[in-house]
């Protein structure tokens, strides 16, 4: 399949199940909400080393947030619910509670409950105040008010969770590093408009795509040598001579459909730059179908996107 001179390879991205949750963080100003969001999702690129994958889903206007202040929506994913339950309160306590003017609210209603203030309320040393309005016993949402030096930290007791998808991806094979980066930036800008997904890596882009395993004992992953241009000829390479640089976009989402939609939007944005923009091909990372049950087949996803020879 060729789109605007870019080859869409007959490959698929292999993704795996994750458990995720959404937090809504608000602050007095959009800047402080963003600072809280970035801090909370910092060092959360890959579960391999960080324990979770997190990112800012989108920014929120005052009319969209529970307290009428500007905010951000975050998604945090972990490999299982137990890990999610541990990692969310840690990040909440270290990065949101500490950040001036912030408040934190549940962003998902259903699913198993992930503790928020339920855990960190004890920081208030007995001065915490809970409030639950309406509903019968066991119904409704409870929030907590924790006195802090700057004023008061307001936080929902817990939030819901979803069974999500982690590790959706595609690879941009370009002539040069500059052209690969430009294409990746275009993809990220377009994909961030898709609801329900995050791109957890720096700026949404990964340069160190990996393969499973390593020659070194104890390492789970190592550089994806088949896609390293500087190794062409020394390993079984997947890269033609025209490719000088490869970047990967990794996608986590709240559903298969959200990841598929983001993949389509991203590849479309890359292909809009076309061969003239230095993009040679689009490929995807997979491990023969052994890593996870979710397969995002590139050509199926891009079906009807305006194929040209």
């Amino acid at each position, binding site marked *: 399949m060729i789109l605007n001179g870019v080859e869409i390879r007959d490959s698929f991205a292999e993704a795996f199940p994750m458990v995720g949750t959404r937090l809504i963080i608000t602050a007095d100003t959009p800047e402080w909400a963003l600072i809280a969001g970035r801090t909370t999702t910092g060092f959360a690129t890959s579960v391999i080393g960080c324990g979770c994958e997190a990112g800012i889903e989108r920014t929120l206007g005052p009319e969209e947030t529970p307290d009428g202040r500007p905010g951000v929506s975050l998604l945090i994913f972990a490999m299982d619910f137990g890990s999610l339950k541990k990692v969310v309160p840690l990040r909440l306590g270290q990065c949101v509670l500490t950040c001036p003017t912030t408040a934190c609210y549940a962003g998902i209603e259903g699913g198993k409950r992930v503790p928020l203030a339920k855990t960190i309320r004890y920081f208030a040393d007995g001065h915490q105040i809970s409030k639950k309005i309406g509903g019968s*016993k066991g119904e409704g949402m409870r929030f907590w008010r924790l006195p802090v030096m700057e*004023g008061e930290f307001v936080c929902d007791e817990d939030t819901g969770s979803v069974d999500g998808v982690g590790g959706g991806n595609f690879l941009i094979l370009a002539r040069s590093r500059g052209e690969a980066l430009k294409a990746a930036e275009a993809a990220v800008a377009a994909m961030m408009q898709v609801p329900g997904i995050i791109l957890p890596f720096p700026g949404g882009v990964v340069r160190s795509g990996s393969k499973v395993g390593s020659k070194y004992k104890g390492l789970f992953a190592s550089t994806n040598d088949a896609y390293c241009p500087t190794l062409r000829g020394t390993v079984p390479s997947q890269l033609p001579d025209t490719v000088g640089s490869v970047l990967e976009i990794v996608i986590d989402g709240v559903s298969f459909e959200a990841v598929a939609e983001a993949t389509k939007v991203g590849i479309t944005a890359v292909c809009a730059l076309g061969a003239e923009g230095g993009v040679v091909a689009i490929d995807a990372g997979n491990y023969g179908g052994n890593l996870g049950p979710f397969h995002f087949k590139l050509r199926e996803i891009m079906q009807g996107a305006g194929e040209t020879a």
Partner: protein
Amino acid sequence: MSGVSLKPRAPFEARVDLSGLTPEVTGPLTLRELEHKEVPCGGRRVKLAELFFVEGAPDGVLLIEIGDVRLDGVGAGMTTGELIVDGTVGAFAGRCMSGGVLRIGGEAGDFLGSEMSGGRIELAGHAGSHAGAAGSGSRRGLSGGVLVIGGDAGPRAAERQRGGLITIAGNAGEGLATDMIAGTVSVGGAIGPLMGRGMKRGTIFVDAVPELPAGFVDTGAHELVALRLLARRVPELAARLQGWTKARRIVGDTLIGGQGEVLARG
């Protein structure tokens, strides 16, 4: 018409207690079964048809067109459905209610919504004493749900309240929220001098800093994000909290180690 309607045949000779005659009870019955259902009237039990014209089709709605006759226990024990009273009710309306909606167009007697744990009561007029409070001998005031009083509330409203929301558009009598354990109360008018005495937790919204019992400590005026949140999440408080950027926070009752708060527009 949807639901069942009850209209008195004649003025009652004794107090009638409708406790337990709720939409979930009347819904499954046929009209004939409903007419034969007995309710306490004075010292005896009387068939409903002897007291009321029973009309309509039983479902989740019960309409009582009662005028000024004060029936006791209207909506007591409700768990679901809708009960509408076109008129005034006596004591214990909505007592121990845990769900559904009770709308009263007139006034209510004592113990309206006492020991209520869920659902919603909307009263257009004034309420008697002990609205949303603990019943006699009980330690449990309103613990969930919403009680909206369009007029004044008599003494001891919200006594021992431990959750949920009570809004009083008018004045609150003496002893509002005494021994309150948790929950939220909003008063639009004047309050009595014993408000919040013995209060452990909970929040009381008032317009101006009131005279409070000893044991309440003024912590100053503060910007509270919780005000914004409550204004958005709780429709009953939206109008009340409109424009509140700060609240004067008075904490008490410290004489018993309480951490309740009275919030006045700051």
